[in-house]
């Protein structure tokens, strides 16, 4: 059998993603890559391999996959229901996926972006130095049933490992720092921005996420005369109607709408993962404080490997089975506890 992962069917927004494609800003191409890069770090830690390896990013729902050879997988990011050959398996954990075995990944239980990491990484050809699809630029494409993904040689062998669950899948407080146009917003507007409660609008994707709020729009002085300038992911752009958009990994490289601030890189996964309707708020921190917070996040990411524990029992699937019992009154070993939408 060949070292592939075959896609039998999948949701509409499943793509190969990695750490992205730096170096093309001057040519109009943003970095792209995984919307939640921490999930790739977690997958790499669980499989004991470099975080540069490419994985599958699944928006909202996964799909059905078949191993073409003995593979190892790690499931990270937004927790989704998952089964290997009809047996529930834990999220945020590594598992063996033997040749011929079928992996079914259903809908997200919280959060937005789930990741299927594979031992050896997904080994599709590089496009401009990386494997990640950048759909807004026209690089790569969403995957569909029938695709077979080549998998690289796997140097590791351990499975059955897990990481503690994270809380970044439900919205919450987002730390931001000043950007080059923050001064165009007066003190009162900036303070109001920091005390306003926002909801993640359903209009959100890898390019940007719109935030809804009650109350007056946020307006910059000289809003219409601000010259188009560089954009970086995390920038909070105030659109013409006064609603903020957090620009994400696949955003454009330049823009003329004013930006009130920029999200700290360590809080970008929380923005990306917030499901539609989730409550979010923004808190300004100084550049010094931002550096300290980010250094702390870098250290935590580097130490992920030391938080890995053996998956002795599977508390997630046990909890799930109990909840199914509460709902249906019956536990069936054969009934699929979730249904994939066609």
């Amino acid at each position, binding site marked *: 059998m060949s070292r592939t992962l075959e896609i039998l069917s999948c949701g509409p927004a499943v793509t190969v993603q990695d750490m992205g494609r730096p170096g093309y*800003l*001057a040519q*109009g191409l943003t970095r792209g890559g995984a919307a939640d890069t921490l999930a790739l770090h977690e997958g790499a830690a669980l499989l004991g391999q470099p975080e540069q390896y490419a994985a599958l990013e699944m928006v909202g729902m996964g799909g059905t996959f078949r191993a073409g050879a003995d593979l190892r997988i790690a499931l990270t990011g937004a927790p989704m229901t998952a089964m290997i050959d009809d047996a529930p398996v834990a999220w945020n954990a590594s598992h063996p996926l033997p040749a011929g075995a079928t992996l079914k990944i259903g809908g997200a239980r919280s959060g937005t972006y789930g990741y299927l990491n594979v031992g050896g990484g997904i080994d599709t050809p590089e496009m401009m130095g990386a494997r990640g699809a950048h759909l*807004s630029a026209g690089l790569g494409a969403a995957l569909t049933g029938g695709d077979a993904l080549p998998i690289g040689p796997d140097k590791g062998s351990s499975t059955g490992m897990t990481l503690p669950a994270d809380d970044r899948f439900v919205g919450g407080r987002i730390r931001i720092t*000043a950007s080059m146009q923050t001064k165009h917003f007066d003190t009162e507007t900036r303070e109001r921005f920091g005390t306003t409660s926002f909801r993640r609008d359903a209009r959100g994707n890898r390019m940007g996420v719109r935030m809804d709020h009650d109350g007056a729009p946020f307006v910059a002085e000289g809003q219409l005369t601000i010259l*188009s300038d560089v954009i970086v992911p995390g920038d909070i752009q105030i659109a013409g109607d006064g609603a903020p958009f957090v620009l994400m990994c696949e955003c454009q490289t330049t823009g003329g709408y004013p930006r009130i601030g920029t999200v700290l890189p360590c809080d970008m996964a929380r923005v990306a993962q917030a499901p539609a309707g989730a409550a979010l708020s923004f808190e300004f921190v100084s*550049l010094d404080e*931002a550096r300290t917070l980010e*250094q702390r996040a870098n250290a935590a990411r580097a130490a992920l490997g030391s938080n890995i524990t053996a998956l002795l029992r599977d508390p997630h699937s046990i909890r799930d089975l109990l909840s199914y019992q509460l709902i249906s009154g019956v536990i069936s070993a054969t009934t699929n506890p979730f249904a994939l939408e066609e």
Partner: protein
Amino acid sequence: MAEPVQIRAVGLAGLLVQFADTMSEPANRAAIAFRAAVEAEDWPEVRETSTSLVSTFISVDLVTTAPEGITEKLNALLATQDWHSAPLPAGRTLWEIPTLYGTDAAPQLEEAAQAAGVSPETAIAELSSARVRVLTIGFAPGQPYTGELPPHWDIPRQQALTKSVPAGALVVAIRQLIIFTNASPTGWRHVGQTAFRTFRPKDDHPIALAPGDELRFASVTAAEYARIVERDTSGNGGAQRQVLA
């Protein structure tokens, strides 16, 4: 008299050197020249650089690099010359790109001409003879913002967006012309259609244009344009290129 140059932090992603608050030809030249100078310095903390209309972005990880040190280096480099009078980069290319003006292929020519206060015939004559420069590449991969056209082409963007213009569309507003990389909604007016592909992902050189390159959008008939579309496999859309001395 040149405006004061400002250095600002762009979150934790790097520093921006702004040569003006509004679009000006010397400030655009300054941004392009300063970027080349930063690249030549080859400072280890600089990840990549880019230019917008009148600014140079220096991507630096401000988490691991203190902003003060790199700001000092940038200030020292800024002090070495008057960047607003810097020459254009060497080895630029002049592109002559066949363009079908008006017709159903580019339905807003008449509207744009009216906004500029000229007849459609004069608009075609002016736009097809103007030699414009790539001011910056941005928004989408390889997408050029070119200018500047004569002052009467300082026409505003439309209030309501055009739902979609195709890839290769030549659009106009604020004394600038853009060739769209991908089909896109836009507030700019669609005055011409080219078969020029600004982004060719499978090529060894996926991005055709660079800031400083010059362009002329020569007018061709619908029949000539159709022949170009039929024959072209390179993405050049029949464009002729010439290296400027």
